[in-house]
């Protein structure tokens, strides 16, 4: 078992809050990812068991949403929004700058396992473009220098 007893209990509690228990699937996946850092196939199987679904159905959901990760990553996940408004405000340059600063390409993890860099579609903060998400925190109105400083401060 890769999902702990504590998380299982929280998943059961979440299921109880929905008219159809299956409605709690996203909540459950968030809980699992919080615990494991990502959602490996074994975890998908276990979630499927908890919900009476097929593992393949859980994998459909996990692969559908950008915020769920099937693969393990660095200690921090950094996502630069590259959708249209952010791109118009320099998101691509920002991303390239971060790539060369970290010495990795978008989609890769630094060798020390500190940061996984990625890009995202619109995160709903267009008014403060360009922006990036570091784990669960939004950083807005970015310029390359400030973004680098934020990354450098990460453990």
């Amino acid at each position, binding site marked *: 078992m890769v999902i702990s007893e504590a998380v299982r209990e929280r998943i059961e509690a979440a299921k109880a809050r929905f008219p159809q228990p299956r409605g709690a699937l996203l909540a459950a996946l968030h809980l699992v990812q919080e615990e494991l850092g990502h959602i490996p196939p074994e975890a998908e199987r276990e979630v499927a068991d908890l919900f009476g679904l*097929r593992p393949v159905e859980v*994998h*459909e959901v996990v692969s559908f*949403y950008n915020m769920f990760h099937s693969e393990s990553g660095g200690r921090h996940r950094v996502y630069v929004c590259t959708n249209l408004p952010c791109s118009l405000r320099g998101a691509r340059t920002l991303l390239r700058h971060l790539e060369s600063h970290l010495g990795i390409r978008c989609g890769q993890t630094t060798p020390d396992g500190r940061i996984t860099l990625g890009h995202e579609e619109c995160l709903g903060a267009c008014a403060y473009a360009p922006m990036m998400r570091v784990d669960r925190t939004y950083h807005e109105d970015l310029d390359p220098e400030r973004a680098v400083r934020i990354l450098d401060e990460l453990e």
Partner: protein
Amino acid sequence: MPRITVDGRDYEVPEGRTLLQALDDLGVLMNGVEIPHYCWHPKLSIDGSCRLCQVEIEGQPKLQIACNTPVQDGMVVYTRTERVRRAREGVMELLLVNHPLDCPICDQAGECKLQDYAFEYGVPRSRTREPRRALKKRVDLGPTIVFDQERCILCRRCVRFCREVPGTGELGVFGRGDRSVVDVFPGEELRNDYSMNVADICPVGALTTRDFRFRIRVWFLKEIPGVCTGCSRGCNIHLGTAYNRVYRYTPRRNDEVNETWICDEGRLSYKAIGAPDRIREPWLRSARGVLEPATESDALGRAADRIRTAAEAHGPGVVAALASPHATNEDLFVLRRLLAALGTEVHGMAVPRGRGDEILLREERAPNVAGGRALGFGEAEPVLDRIRGGGVSVLLVLGHDLLDPRYEGALDALRRCESVILLDTHHSELERAAEIVLPVRHAAEKLGTFTNFAGRVQRIEPAVEPPFLALSDGETLHRLGRTLGLAGFAGVYDVRAISRAIGSEFPAFAGRDVDAVGPLGLPLAGDPA
């Protein structure tokens, strides 16, 4: 029942169905009313994802998808307007944005709905300059199916099939939007008893069977209607033939029997037709005790001799027969007549068995068990017992069904007979006990009927000619009767006349001859099943 109008024609349709379903129920969909569709399949749940089936409905401002729009009384539908044509054109353009130009190397070419509708509604030029999506070209989804991700149009038919028919649900659509791909759960494979049906329902060349892939261009194939011989379900099939060879079996729709499916085992059973172990000539056991090739007349002559001598010495009761549920109703009827003319009533039928399931596959692994029973052939055991007791001198055996583990020791029992006359398609252990072996035709090589487990009489017809001299069991037995000089066995064998004659002796078969049952078969008369 609601009445609807489609392109100016009135139809009375069943209640509670969607437009496509209702038209399909009436048998007019793609057969008078052309509404192209990819994701909808008559035997799967509705998906509504491809949008190709859009039609115009009076009073509705927007086009509606016919697959998921419930019929309503008074509904007026148009399927051929300019708006509809433009919508189809748009859908086709989107589907083709990422489709590779693979037709020259694609197995589906020639029977591809994407090709057909691109030809009908496609725009001849591409308006995009972006590179097409590059994906995996050869994914081994499991032991039977090879998948080309680039060709997939994401109709989800295969996904729904696996969830809804075998219930195994191996496939899913992963990712989102233009990055979606069909695949199996990481580390698993597509493996179930019905897996190859996904290749039939895939409207494009994305899913192909490992067995048929790259074997032949489909436009060289002639598709002959027939019946699978794998079990007593008798699934309706097409035999894809070319150059006097059968290249594949594919399901043929018959809602009363197999809907639109066949099992993998049955599908691959075509391999037996052209197998190297076919019996290609008559064989006779020589004075030295070995089987040697012989002419048909020598073999029939020896068989007639044995039968005559035994019957004269001990009475006709020492002549017995074991019928095969692989033989047609006609073959078995001739056997009955032969036994009656000889005056013996010692007969039975060996039925091979296997694992059955709740879907199609039946335990009785032969196509004509019910036919044999209806024609009066009982169990094989009493005959075997009689042989063991020394009561049978000459035994006629059709087929090698006796080799089923259920009849353990049958081969030893057969050795107790003075003479075993074997009519069979394939070489087998059984020959060790045989004195006379006559080659016969496979179901793919003859005209006749089988009666499936539910009592449905279904027609088979010759799809190929055996590349050696062999007759059907019925005709071989007819010639044996003629050699014996039996009444009613003179002249040329006429399988059609035999087929009609069954009905006069067995009323359940009246009006169920090869020419009367039609492509979908008919239930036995007076048989509620």
